[in-house]
Structures are given as C-alpha cells and as structure tokens.
C-alpha cells in the first residue's frame, strides 16, 4: 500500500463515518463545548412545503405601480406579518421581504389556509380601552368587550375584560410631535366628530385613570388621562424614544399594516399529498440506487464493487451536507439528488471504460489504472462544469417566485455533482489502488474480476 493511499483511506473513513453519523435519523445534534466556545445545533432534514404540506403566499403592497414604497414601512409590514403568523401557531414559518414591495410567507403544516390568508391581510383591530387605575405594560395580551385574542394567538394575561371605548374606525390621523422645551417625542392624534364626542365625554369623567391603546388585543401603550380632552384631539406623552413613537403612529394610522397588501399568488399542498410524496420518493430513490449499484457490480465486477462503496459514501456525504447547510428538500430537489447519482456513476463509467481499453491493448494493470483516471479526468471536469453552468441558470430562474421549485433542483444537483468529484474520483481511485495492490498477481489470473 502506498503511503499516500493509506493517508487518503484514513481521511475517507473519517469523512464517511462523520457523514454517516450526521445522516443517521434521530441524530441528537451537535453539542460541542471548547472552552468559551459552544456549538449547539440540532440537525434535521428540512422538508419543503411540497413535502410536509403547507402554504406559500406572495403578498404585494397594494399601491399604484409608480408609487414608491417606503422601505421602513415595508419592514414594519414584514414584522407585523411575522407576528401574526407566529400567532397562528405555525411551526418554523418563513416571512421574507422580496424586492421592495413584496413579502413571501411560508407556513408549513397550516391546517386552515382560508383563515390564514384572512389573518394576514386584515388591517388589524385598534381599540382604546378603559383600564381603570392600572397602566398595563406594552405587549400585555388582554380581553376587551369586543372579544379576546384570536384563536391561536397568545392567551390573555388575566381574566379581566376591559371596556372598549373607541376603535380605530373613529381615528382620523396621528403624527409624531416634539415637545418644544425638552425635544422629547410625543404622539398627537385626532378623532372624527363622533369619536371626538365619545372621547371628550370619557376623558372628562376619567381624569387620572388610564386609557390603553390596544392593537389586536396587544397593549401598545398605556397613557394616563391627565385632563379632559373635548375637541377630539389628544396627545400621548411618555417615556418613549423616537423609533417607538414612530411605530405607534404607524400602527395608529393604518390599523396594523402601514401599507395595504394584496395576495398575488397562493400555493398550498395538503399534508396527505406531502406525506405521500416523501414516502414514494424515498422508495423510488432506494429502488433506483439499488438498480444502479447492481448494474455497476455486474458490469464492472471488482472496480464496480469499489465504485458502489464510493457511491454509498457519496450518498452519505450528500445527505449530511443537506442537513448541515441546511438545504430545504423539495420533490424536485430529490430528483436533482438522484440525477446527481447518475452523474457520479457516469464519472466512474468513463474511468472504467478507459481502464478496460488500456488493459485490452496489453498495458499493465498499474498503468491502465493511471491512464484510466488521467484520461477520463478532462471529460469528467468538462461535463461537471457544464452541469454547474446549467444549475446556475436554473437557480437564477428559480429566483422568480413562480418557478421557485426549480431552485431546489438546481441546488441539490450542483451540490451532488461537487460531491461526486470527490467520491467518484479520489475515493474510487484510492480504493482501486489499494485493492489492486492487495490483490496483486491474483488479479492477472482472474481477469473476469475486471470484467474483461
């Protein structure tokens, strides 16, 4: 055994063992502590919406095409939607801004798509409630006379039901003001005439008590009524910073969403179809892999066997990469992985065919192996580069929302081909070297082992 091959073999065994450990189902996750440095990660296969069932919604700012959308407002929209999706009780949702005017929402395993969409689009309920003598801290969840928090939203923090004095329907506007003396920000707001009358009466009767502002049953701010406010114009001053004041104003002004949204695109996969797809594609993958392994074994004999072992290592490494990066697996993604198995085998076929030819021309075993690997190398590299180029184009194509499932295919295919460069060439070559060195002369007498 040559020294270099020995070293490579150790490296391959280590990589294979690590990959096998990562790929193992129910892997406990990585938990490493090195001094101060703590790595903690659980590793699971991330399944795409098409495999676990769920819904993907693309929302767009519902404003005229030529109108600029304020990035800060859009970010606020994203944040609010994220809260709402969390409120729906979705595990691991994705809420992502796309470009300047769009938000993609992914809700795996959602049970009731209709209600989810309604919840996302709704402008939110703004209430002014009478909280008596207590100032409730922002973020408290309450029940009001208009109802409790929505199903799936966090439960209220107490059993108390507060009276709703006014709702956002009566609010005409809101703005951030600055105290001329101290420069501290405050919030000015104005009700319409109906709201003004109710507000005037309420404030006159409740000076010294608290009137809290509630959005979707969550306290935003709990100001104290310092004086009767007859004209329907009021001011909230308090201990808040400029950012906070701005966000309260945004929420006062637009209910919940600073920008109205419309649904551009919805894609939902039921959990039954998803589960069926996982089961079926796993089975298909196994069957395909076994047939390929059998073919290689029967057709190429000893080198084929070595290629099979390399192929199993390949599958382990790829699965481990998916878990570690992590790559979200989709149905086209699985197809991409399986195709990359084909590419990995193709590299070995090129090499072995070359080897056989050299052997037939009477070259020694050693030299045939060397020639096989060296001459096939440029073809393998060429074809892999062209696959990568294709993958880059497809990945780019998958960036447009309507073709997003293409992305999974491009990613797994490209990763698979990269991994196969290592397993189909380095791993197989090391195995072939070692096996031929060990078998030595015996191979010369049993040429059927080489498939000639």
């Amino acid at each position, binding site marked *: 055994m040559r020294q270099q091959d020995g070293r490579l073999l150790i490296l391959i065994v280590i990589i294979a063992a690590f990959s096998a450990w990562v790929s193992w189902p129910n892997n406990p996750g990585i938990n490493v502590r090195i001094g101060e440095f703590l790595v903690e990660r659980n590793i699971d296969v991330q399944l795409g919406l*098409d495999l676990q069932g769920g819904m993907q919604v*693309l929302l*767009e700012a519902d404003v005229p095409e030529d109108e600029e959308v304020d990035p800060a407002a859009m970010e606020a929209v994203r944040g609010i939607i994220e809260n709402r999706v969390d409120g729906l009780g979705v595990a691991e949702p994705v809420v992502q801004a796309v470009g300047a005017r769009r938000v993609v929402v992914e809700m795996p395993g959602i049970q009731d*798509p*209709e209600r989810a*969409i309604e919840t996302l689009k709704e402008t939110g309920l703004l209430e002014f409630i009478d909280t008596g003598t207590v100032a409730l801290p922002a973020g408290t969840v309450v029940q009001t006379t208009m109802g409790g928090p929505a199903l799936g939203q966090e439960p209220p923090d107490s059993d108390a039901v507060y009276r709703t004095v006014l709702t956002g329907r009566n609010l005409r506007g809101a703005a951030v003001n600055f105290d001329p003396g101290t420069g501290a920000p405050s919030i000015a707001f104005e009700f319409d005439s109906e709201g003004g009358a109710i507000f005037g009466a309420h404030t006159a009767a409740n000076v010294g008590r608290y009137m809290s502002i509630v959005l979707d049953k969550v306290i935003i701010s709990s100001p104290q009524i310092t004086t009767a406010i007859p004209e329907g114009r009021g001011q909230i001053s308090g201990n808040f910073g400029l950012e906070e004041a701005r966000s309260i104003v945004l929420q006062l002004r637009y209910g919940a969403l600073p920008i109205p949204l419309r*649904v*551009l*695109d*919805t*894609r*939902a*996969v*039921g959990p*039954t*179809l998803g589960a*069926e797809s996982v089961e*079926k*594609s796993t*089975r*298909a*993958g196994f*069957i*395909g*892999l076994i*047939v*390929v392994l059998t*073919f*290689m074994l029967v057709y190429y004999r000893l080198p084929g066997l070595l290629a099979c072992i390399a192929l199993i290592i390949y599958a382990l490494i790829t699965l481990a990469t998916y878990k570690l990066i992590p790559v979200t697996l989709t*149905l086209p993604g699985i*197809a991409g992985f*399986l*195709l990359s*198995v*084909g590419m990995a*085998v*193709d590299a070995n*076929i*090129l090499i072995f*065919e070359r080897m056989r*030819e050299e052997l037939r021309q009477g070259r020694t075993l050693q030299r045939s192996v060397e020639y096989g690997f060296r001459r096939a190398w440029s*073809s393998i590299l*060429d*074809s892999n580069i*062209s*696959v990568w*180029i*294709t993958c880059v*184009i*497809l990945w*780019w*194509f998958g960036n*447009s*929302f*309507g*073709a997003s*499932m*293409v992305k999974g*295919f*491009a990613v797994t295919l490209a990763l698979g081909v990269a991994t196969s460069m290592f397993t189909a060439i380095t791993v197989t070559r090391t195995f072939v070297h070692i096996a031929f060195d060990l078998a030595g002369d015996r191979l010369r007498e049993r040429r059927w082992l080489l498939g000639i």
Partner: protein
Amino acid sequence: MFTLIQKRRWYFMISAVLLVLSLGTLGYSWITRGSPLILSIDFTGGSLLELAFDEPVVPERARGILEGAGFPEATVQTVAEGRQIVVRARQMEMTEKESLTEALEAAWGESTELRFESVGPVVGRETTRAAIMAILASSVAILAFIAFAFRRVPNAIRYGVCAITKMFHDVIILLGISSFLGLIFHWEIDALFLTALVTVVGFSIQDVIVVFDRIRENSTKRRNEPYETLVNRSLLETLHRSLATELNAMFVMIAIIFFGGVTIRHFMTIMLLGMLTGTYSSLFFAVPLLVVWQQREWGRIFSPRQAAAAT
C-alpha cells in the same frame, strides 16, 4: 468491425421522420387548440385545485358545477379512477375556492384538498420573462461551452455547428413529444418542464463531446485511416460508455416515474424522453452529420448509392 456510421442514411431518415412528425403535431395543436403547447398557470396565471373524494367524480357534472360557480372556462381532469379531480380555472380568491369546494362536496361528499395554487397574472408574466431569459442564457452558455471544448481543434467550426444542429434537432423533437402528450393527456408546459429541457440539452451535449473528443484523439493516432472508418471506430469505442451512462440514468428516472410521487412524474418523463432522444441524436445524428460535412456529400444524404459505395 461493426459498421454503424455507414448506415447513416437510415439515421437521417429516422431523424427526418421524427422532425416532420414533431413539427406536424405542433402545427396540428396550434390549429386545433390555438397554441402549439399547453402552457401551465405558472406562465399564464390562473388557479389549480386538486381534490380527493371517496367516490368517483363524474367529469361532466363537475363541469356543470364549475360553470354554475362562475368558472365557465374551467377544465376538469380526473385521476386515480376518478376519485381525484384537477380543476384549472382563472385565478380565484380563497372565498371562491371555498364555495366551489362546498358545491363539489354537495355532489360527491367530503373531500381532501391535495393541492391549491393560485397564480396572479403579474407573477405569471414574471415567470414567463424569467423563462425566456433562462432559455437565452443556457443557449449562450452551451455555445460558449462548445466553443471552449473545441478551441484547439482543426475545423472546430464543424464540430460546433454539428453539436448546435443536434441541439435544435433535440429541442424540436422534445417539443413535438410534449405537444403530443398535451393533445392526448393534457400535459402542460410548466416551470419544471423548462428545467427538464434545459438540463437534458446540457446533458446530451456531453455525449457529443465525448465522441467528438475521441474522433479528435484517434485522428492524430491513425492518420492513414479513412475518415469514415475513423469515426466509426470512435463511435464504437465510446458506445459502451454512452450506453452504460444512459442505462444508469434511465434506471433512476424510471424508478422515479413508477414509484415516485405524482407531482414530478411529468418532469421525470420529459427528462427521460429528452435523455433518450439526446443520446440517440448524439450518436446517430450529430456524428453522421460530421461525416457528411467532412466528405462533402450534402446532395446525397438520403441516397442509397452512397451507403452502398461506402461499405
């Protein structure tokens, strides 16, 4: 030695028949359906609703229900012995979908929603634009790749032109097959179809390059051999590789088609068909074309005398 390339007039005839059939199907579909290929809602916008029922659905009645629900243009397709239906219609709101489902459930009982997609026209247009860009980009990439692969070869332009002609040959046949599948089984062209197309065209260029590479190698080693024999030798030498690779890819694809999920069955079928036509045309169209060019027998491509004279 086994003679393959000498029978090239047959291969050209097969290719010609396939091309004529493909173009004919595309044209027929264009005339009868108004479009050579059926584009999916990925590109056109619209909605797709897939429901599973416990009892078989009667498509005609389902169509009536759809019309009553305000979707006169909708198409209904039944799968899994009629127990599943796929409805394709204009874009629908969640509330519209709910009332439609209720109307259908009133006729055939409780259903399970397997899939629902609703694509707005804006997204459809964007996907179409991205698709066109992807096709252009991959064409340029393949051209650049061919130019690169044959950069130091005499008559490189011939290799290049043959490879590109083969690419068109494959694309037309694949589109023809898709058009046929569209006419018979209502298969649609979606984003995944395009992915399959771009991928197999890329893959099958490999086969050409492997054979052309071998021709290049042999032509320096065996200067005295007639070109035709040389090409035949190269073809035979690489045939093992081409077939072995093809077989392996086929194993995987057939496994997915038969045992994998329904959702990617079309995708894989197109990929498999593309792979088959691609490999065939690499060996039996692109390579013979090169020989024809080299021996300047353009006027006699289909003539039997040529084949007779060569053997």
